[in-house]
């Protein structure tokens, strides 16, 4: 085996696993679960190896079928894609262990197989989006991703999931078609779909066909903005993310929308370049969107009574933080944004999984019903508290480091107003996270009669939660070890 083939093998493993699940239908479901775990483990190992390889030896370029890059499809593994595929593999493995512990609430037993098929296709398309170096190929993977996400949202046989999946599909398709028209305009101006080649010819094309490039950039920002739930385009997110099963809410909120924002980064910095972005003052537009999103997302979250909807709106606010880092168009800003992608991924996964466990046993999603839960489910509420404190940005958690970096990046660019917005948004986070923690640990439980019905939680559900809680704190205390990889990723995106 040659090292260049490793990224393809990652994708193939996921695809083969998705194909294998229906064949194992008559066997006990445990075999499928174990096989899936082996696949995730192998992909994790190869992602880590690729991460080490690209950081120490050099980037990997693979062209399919031996066609040269301008005709064929090219996969590039550089510090950027290797880092984020590793993060996705870690988070996916944690969520997978949790989901095997009978926690896929609302899905019928016979549908389990289908759920895992969708999960592996989802992972395959996300890896593909990150590895590929071709904007049209990205579009194809994006479409696979949107169909599988919709299917995962609507897998529960419940009324409201269908309408929210439909709305998600419509919004997403508007986004995809906008992105596609952006691809068409870029192809018209440059004659390539390969990102590297476009990047080389972009400056000339901007001189010759300025209108094309400007419209393409607009369409792509709107298209990817809809998919990444950037503030004014976020309306589909709370419904879709709250009606999905808890494990897939974690995947959708922690990983899927991040992948779109990573495509956004790729498009901004590799397809277009800094000169063009500065000339059109894209920075101002992105910063305004980010600032409004940070405030409004938190304000909407305060008003929610359903805990999962609250977490969904909180994701909208957090996307604002990431967009703020990107919108600064500086090395420090992008570093803070990448770090926040990691830390928000960890915290949102922890929040959704612990809430998932609470919903699984207490059958309640109301914020008001959390009274006294800290005594009944100490692990779930403990991890919830750690993650919520991380969201607020308390020291010792990873959320603190990302907010610190973000604040420094903002000051570096003399945009003091956004520091104020950052602090206000953090305070708003306090308003909706802290009451839950206080009522869970300091109030008595409302419904004593439910105490007997609490079952013992399976270990497969407890272990991932503890692991996530530990990871949040470890990343918060030792951020420098990870920062090395993040910095090399930023350098590979921003020459």
């Amino acid at each position: 085996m040659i090292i260049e083939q490793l990224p393809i093998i990652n994708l193939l493993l996921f695809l083969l696993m998705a194909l294998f699940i229906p064949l194992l239908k008559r066997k006990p479901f445990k075999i499928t679960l174990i096989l899936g775990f082996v696949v995730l483990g192998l992909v994790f190992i190869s992602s880590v190896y690729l991460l080490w390889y690209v950081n120490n030896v050099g980037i990997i370029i693979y062209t399919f079928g031996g066609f040269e890059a301008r005709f064929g499809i090219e996969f590039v593994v550089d510090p950027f894609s290797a880092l984020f595929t590793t993060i996705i593999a870690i988070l996916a493995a944690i969520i997978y262990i949790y989901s095997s512990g009978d926690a896929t609430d609302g899905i019928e037993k016979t549908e389990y197989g289908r759920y895992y098929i969708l999960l592996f296709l989802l992972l395959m398309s996300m890896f593909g989006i990150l590895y590929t170096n071709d904007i049209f190929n990205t579009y194809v993977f994006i479409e696979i991703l949107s169909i599988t996400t919709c299917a995962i949202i609507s897998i529960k046989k419940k009324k409201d999931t269908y309408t929210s999946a439909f709305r998600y599909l419509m919004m997403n398709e508007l986004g995809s078609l906008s992105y596609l028209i952006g691809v068409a305009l870029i192809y018209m101006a440059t004659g390539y779909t390969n990102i590297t080649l476009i990047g080389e010819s972009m400056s000339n094309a901007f001189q010759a066909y300025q209108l094309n490039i400007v419209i393409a950039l607009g369409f792509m920002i709107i298209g990817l903005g809809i998919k990444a739930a950037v503030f004014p385009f976020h309306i589909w997110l709370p419904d879709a993310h709250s009606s999905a099963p808890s494990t897939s809410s974690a995947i959708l909120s922690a990983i899927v929308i991040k992948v779109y924002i990573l495509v956004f980064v790729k498009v901004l910095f590799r397809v277009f370049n800094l000169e063009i972005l500065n000339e059109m003052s894209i920075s101002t537009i992105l910063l305004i969107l980010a600032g409004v999103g940070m405030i409004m997302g938190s304000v909407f979250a305060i008003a929610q009574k359903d805990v999962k909807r609250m977490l969904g709106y909180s994701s909208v606010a957090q996307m604002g933080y990431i967009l703020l880092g990107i919108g600064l168009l500086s090395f420090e800003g992008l570093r803070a944004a990448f770090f926040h992608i990691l830390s928000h991924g960890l915290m949102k996964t922890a929040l959704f999984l612990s809430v998932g466990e609470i919903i699984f046993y207490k059958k309640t999603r109301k914020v008001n019903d959390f009274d006294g839960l800290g005594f009944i489910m100490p692990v779930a509420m403990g991890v919830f508290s750690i993650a919520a404190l991380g969201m607020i940005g308390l020291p010792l958690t990873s959320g603190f480091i990302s907010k610190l970096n973000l604040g420094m990046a903002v000051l570096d660019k003399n945009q003091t107003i956004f520091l104020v917005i950052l602090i206000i948004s953090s305070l708003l986070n306090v308003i909706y996270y802290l009451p839950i923690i206080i009522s869970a640990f300091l109030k008595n439980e409302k419904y004593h009669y439910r105490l007997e019905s609490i079952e013992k939680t399976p270990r497969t559900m407890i272990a991932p939660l503890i692991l996530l809680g530990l990871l949040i704190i470890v990343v918060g205390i030792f951020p420098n070890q990870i920062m090395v990889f993040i910095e090399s990723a930023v350098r590979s995106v921003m020459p």
Partner: protein
Amino acid sequence: MDIVDKIIENINYLGAIALFVIGLRIVVLHSNLIKRIMGLNIMGTGVFLFFVSIGNVTGGVPPIIYPDSSGAVYINPIPSVLILTGIVVVVSITVYSLSLVIRIYENYETIDQKELSRLISEEANDH
């Protein structure tokens, strides 16, 4: 007459934009779910027309090499090939969303967005 010439020259691009905008209007504003899916298809067709127009070369011939066709101007086949993938994608999206509409109809017995919003908000108030 200059502007008329320009319009005739770029008629396929204008058509593509028109289809895109018509589709967008239907997707966003129409309340019938099936018509919204149709709007999506119209929008997609607009994008495809745009893409295929890029590959067109005035006076070009299809890119098939005959023994006696040396020196001919070929049209660019790559956009058409890319769009084949795009068509497949839009077909699958259509199939999936139509199946969702069937499920919605089974549960709510309506495919009108306004009616649906009313039913959903009533249900939310009942709880």
